[in-house]
């Protein structure tokens, strides 16, 4: 019952004129970011953080805006998957498998409605799950001291990318780059300048917002410059949506699918290092195993579009659980949301639930609200977004660039910061060409300081005895999960990747 009184308080935070407006704007922008191929939830949230920071929004309001963008992008990603067979963002990849065949059969409108419903269902399950699970996890987190937190951060890096990442060298390299960036600047504990090359600009360290916007927004511009011809030719197809409402019998047919997929997706999301992509993958493969009796999957089966969408929306909500209750993000977007909280001087974890319940419960209430808004935006009003899909990069990318510049310049008013942002944009472009993931870089730059602080606190407690890191039962468990999370993908990752490729080449 306690939960519900908290939730009621949350609704009183969320239902102010300002926060409702922010949620509406967030839902709209999120769906746009999700729908546009090449931009996903992480890009959307990254571009908007500096803006919400410069606008002086408080933590609860910023979180409501950005989480609405996050949820919205998970909805929007399906639109281009279904209509033009290009996933709007990574988690929407699985939706192309049955979504595009439905479009070819002239059932695009139905596919959009069914996925809208399953997205809603998945996100609802996840938000309810978040509401009950996060406070429980917080109780466990109370047992954590500096040594356990350090282990937890190591775990976050070791498990990044989930089961599908089998090139661990690249993940480690990317993490090292990010953590390396975080060590630049005056050392917080002893006050000596470190790795700052005597340059005053580096004394305060490099703001992780600069790294985030550079990597997620500016690098996108370079990618588009490089590929521009190819993209212009692809957009020539026209998009026709005829019937929007599917038969009631079809909706009833997908209810068990949505239920299974939402639960699977939620747990995939809560697991460290998994995130929404894994959620939709697991949901689709399991659903196929259960329901593919007449070999209809991959040829436009309704359950084949409902499963991944319920899965990825619910995983997106699930991924908020460890981020809010432990302060350990499992995916790129939750890492960026964490960055936003840290910029506002709020540390997620037990303290967040105790000191800023308005942020947590306001957020949860806003997510419920956002879900209904998104349902309306994504079913009756979906045609509006299909028009946005046709916005060519030559207009889209300059807008993204300028908003990134406005955001970062708004924080500090320093051209040097913009220069750094361009540098990280270029670095991001090179890393992406080499297939080195950007998320660990971002996470390193965000978590580096916390990680070091916890390590040094632990060492101060133990007076320099390193075995202290492995002494408590909790930390032993975390180290074992770390080891498993690191080793298992090396064994199974290749298999899962092959399976994804097989599914993709079939469609």
């Amino acid at each position, binding site marked *: 019952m306690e939960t519900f009184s908290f939730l009621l308080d949350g609704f009183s935070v969320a239902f102010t004129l300002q926060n409702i407006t922010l949620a509406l704007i967030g839902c709209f922008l999120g769906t746009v970011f999700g729908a546009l191929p090449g931009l996903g939830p992480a890009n959307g949230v990254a571009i908007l953080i500096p*803006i919400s920071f410069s606008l002086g929004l408080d933590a609860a309001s910023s979180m409501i805006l950005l989480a609405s963008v996050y949820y919205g992008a998970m909805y929007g990603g399906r639109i281009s998957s279904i209509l033009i067979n290009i996933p709007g963002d990574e988690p929407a990849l699985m939706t192309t498998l049955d979504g595009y065949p439905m479009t070819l059969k002239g059932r695009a409108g139905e596919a959009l409605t069914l996925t809208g419903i399953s997205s809603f269902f998945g996100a609802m399950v996840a938000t309810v799950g978040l509401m009950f699970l996060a406070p429980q996890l917080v109780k466990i987190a109370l047992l954590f001291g500096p040594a356990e937190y350090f282990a937890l951060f190591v775990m976050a890096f070791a498990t990044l990318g989930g089961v599908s990442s089998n090139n661990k060298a690249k993940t480690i390299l990317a993490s090292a780059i990010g953590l390396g960036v975080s060590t630049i600047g005056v050392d917080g504990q002893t006050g000596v300048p470190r790795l700052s090359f005597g340059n005053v600009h580096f004394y305060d360290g490099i703001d992780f917002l600069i790294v985030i916007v550079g990597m997620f927004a500016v690098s996108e*511009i370079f990618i588009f*410059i490089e590929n*521009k011809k190819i993209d212009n030719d692809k957009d020539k197809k026209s998009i026709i949506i005829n019937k929007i409402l599917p038969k009631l019998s079809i909706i009833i047919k997908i209810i068990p699918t949505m239920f299974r997929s939402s639960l699977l997706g939620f747990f995939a999301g809560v697991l460290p290092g998994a995130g929404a992509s894994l959620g939709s993958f697991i949901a689709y493969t399991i659903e196929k195993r259960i329901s593919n009796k007449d070999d209809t999957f991959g040829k436009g089966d309704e359950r084949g579009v409902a499963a991944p969408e319920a899965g990825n929306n619910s995983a997106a909500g699930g991924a908020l659980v460890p981020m809010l209750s432990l302060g350990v993000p499992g995916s790129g977007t939750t890492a960026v949301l964490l960055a936003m909280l840290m910029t506002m001087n709020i540390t997620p974890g037990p303290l967040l639930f105790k000191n800023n319940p308005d942020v947590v419960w306001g957020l949860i209430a806003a997510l419920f609200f956002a879900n209904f808004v998104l349902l309306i935006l994504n079913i009756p009003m979906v045609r509006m977004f299909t028009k946005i899909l046709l916005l060519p990069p030559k207009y889209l990318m300059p807008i993204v660039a*300028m908003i990134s510049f406005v955001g970062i310049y708004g924080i500090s008013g320093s051209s040097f910061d913009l220069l750094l942002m361009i540098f990280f944009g270029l670095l991001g472009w090179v890393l992406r060409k080499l*297939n080195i993931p950007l998320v660990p870089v971002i996470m390193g730059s965000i978590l580096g300081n916390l990680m070091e602080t916890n390590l040094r606190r632990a060492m101060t407690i133990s007076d320099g005895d390193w075995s202290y890191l492995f002494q408590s039962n909790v930390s032993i468990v975390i180290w074992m999960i770390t080891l498993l999370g690191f080793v298992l993908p090396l064994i199974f990752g290749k298999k899962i990747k092959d399976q994804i490729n097989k599914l993709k080449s079939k469609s």
Partner: protein
Amino acid sequence: MNERIFGIFSLIIACSYIYVASLTQLSFISDPVGPKIFPYMIGFFFIISSIFLIIKPELNPKWPSLYRFLEIVFITIVLIVYAYSLPTVGFVISTLIATFILSWRLGAKILEALIFGLVVSFTIYFLFHNVLGLSLAEGIWGF
């Protein structure tokens, strides 16, 4: 540049990272770990993973043609000039020019790009400055 060359490059960066970290001057009061150990730990993993890339490169990335590459260099220069012209030239004019060049290079016709630049720079100025009250670069003319 294939992965192996990148690995060598990142190995050099990793080593210099450790070297620069080792130059950190210690303060007379310090905790048991001090400011150097954490960078050393990062550097260790940096080096190990670089060596892995050198020994076991995975793929040969497709790099853009020289022309496209020069275009990326050009856009980078435009963005840098934009960053440094903001405080003097002001937001409206520099954004107009930067947006114009970007959308022109992304395939818009010159006139289209010019109109688009005008629209974007004035819309953002109006939206962020007048409606939302965000501080944009003012420049010597105040806009």
